[in-house]
């Protein structure tokens, strides 16, 4: 999709798909809209959920978002502390914690006498606050202990610092187009003693100018439809909103593939439950790039990717993507797809 005509084609496909979806689900979607006014949904959005998940699952998902039935979690910074130590220290302060079901250095916060992001232990860098599904992106990538790793849209560096604790002897380059977010990354790297991160304020679509990388994390800008449990996540998304995100996501994926060494892996992640921003855009990429394969990520959870949706062309291999949903996993809505570039 390197030109305006190609981008327009994708936009047309998505708009056409949305029309089909609306004609099928419009009246049902309107009933659901009326049921969840506080979620601030768009008619397009509800219809897409009905198409992707079916009526029962869509309702269960929205009910879970409505009740904010999503676990709160922290990631223990294994550079400075052990999970048992953090657990004990926070419990002694009145916190109620459990082990994360899928990751050994994650803790679920069941009860917090004070905000978990305001403790001395947080300030000293013993842990950081991170969503329970978001925490699975780095293990899914499973980056090498040595070599160069790229975090294309690093933001405040939550996953970047996780890359650092996973691979403290690797060399991590973090990019973001937003300088203020990189200032937050600077503070997080300092707080968490993540000493092997070099952050650059640049557009990740130019990442290929930095050479090639052994592993790449692309936590792509997205619609955020997986965050409906949060007040700030509740705004109506039309298909035009989704289409503009898909265009950017595709450009970023192309740039990431260009910067990936043969044999290397790229982990694409979004906090979105839409098929358009996940299985569809991955399928577009695979059709365009011969030397790519989708792999099953090495994580013990997640539902398979969706391979049939409206009339969009989605490749069977998209089933190897992993989906996390609040009513199944107690997590924020999240989707992961792991891609390998063949040697």
């Amino acid at each position, binding site marked *: 999709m390197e030109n305006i005509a190609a981008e327009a084609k994708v936009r047309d496909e998505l708009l056409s798909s949305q029309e089909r979806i609306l004609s099928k689900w419009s009246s049902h979607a309107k009933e659901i809209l009326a049921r969840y006014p506080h979620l601030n949904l768009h008619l397009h959005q509800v219809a897409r959920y009905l198409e992707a998940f079916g009526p029962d699952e869509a309702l269960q998902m929205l009910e879970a978002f409505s009740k904010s039935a999503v676990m709160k979690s922290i990631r223990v910074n294994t550079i400075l502390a052990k999970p048992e130590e953090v657990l004990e220290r926070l419990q002694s302060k009145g916190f109620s914690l459990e082990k994360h079901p899928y990751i050994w250095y994650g803790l679920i916060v069941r009860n917090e006498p004070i905000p978990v992001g305001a403790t*001395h232990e947080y300030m*000293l860098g013993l842990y950081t606050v991170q969503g329970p599904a978001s925490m699975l992106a780095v293990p899914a990538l499973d980056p090498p202990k040595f070599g160069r790793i790229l975090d294309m849209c690093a933001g405040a560096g939550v996953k970047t610092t996780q890359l650092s604790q996973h691979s403290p002897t690797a060399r*991590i380059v973090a990019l973001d187009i937003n300088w*203020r977010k990189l200032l937050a990354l600077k503070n997080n790297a300092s707080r968490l*003693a993540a000493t092997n991160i*070099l*952050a650059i*304020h640049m557009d990740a679509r130019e990442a290929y100018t930095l050479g090639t990388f052994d592993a790449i994390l692309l936590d792509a800008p997205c619609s955020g439809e997986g965050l409906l449990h949060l007040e700030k996540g509740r705004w109506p998304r039309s298909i035009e909103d989704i289409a503009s995100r898909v265009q950017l996501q595709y450009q970023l994926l192309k740039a990431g593939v260009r910067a990936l060494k043969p044999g290397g892996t790229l982990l694409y992640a979004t906090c979105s439950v839409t098929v358009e921003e996940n299985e569809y855009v991955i399928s577009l990429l695979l059709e365009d790039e011969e030397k790519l394969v989708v792999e099953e990520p090495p994580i013990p959870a997640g539902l398979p990717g969706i391979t049939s949706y409206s009339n969009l062309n989605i490749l069977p291999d998209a089933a190897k993507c992993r989906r996390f949903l609040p009513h199944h996993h107690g997590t924020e809505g999240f989707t992961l797809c792991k891609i390998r570039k063949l040697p």
Partner: protein
Amino acid sequence: MQDKEATVTTVRAVSICSRRIASLICKLTLCHADDCKWLDSYTLVCISRGEERTDVYALKGRLEEYIDPRILSYNYPLIPGVHVAIIAAGQVALLLGLLQILRLESKITKGYAVINRQAEKLFLYGRDVLPGSIVELSPPPYSECVDRVAVLSLEREPLGWGRLIRRGNRIYIQNLVDAGWYLRSGV
């Protein structure tokens, strides 16, 4: 002086720090640790805005292991590792990042003050430490250390940097920067 980061549009020069600055960081490390061997496995990168201010960063390994150093000439704003010091107007401000590196790579053996639990809470809110709250004190060994101490919790975890203030026979610790800054910084 933990940080007032310049805007993106400020003109900066990025380079590997000179031997003079590396030597300065080593000397300041020796105010608090027995050696500065940690510098052997880090690259110090300096970002200067003319003569006004130099920000010193410590990056694990060599710069060329991350990027081609020629990219520095493209003037992309960079954050090359952990921010450890600011040099401005002839003064050096050591930052929280250096404390974390010393915690990881070395051991704080001198130039420190251990404070009690109540003082820890107040210090992390940006307050000074009163004389009765100092549990253990190892004064800075050299005059170049300018009375700076690493402020530690009872568990000897680094809470921040302070400066010893002597008033008669009482010693206070002025809060220079504390780990609560990470929450107060608004970034």
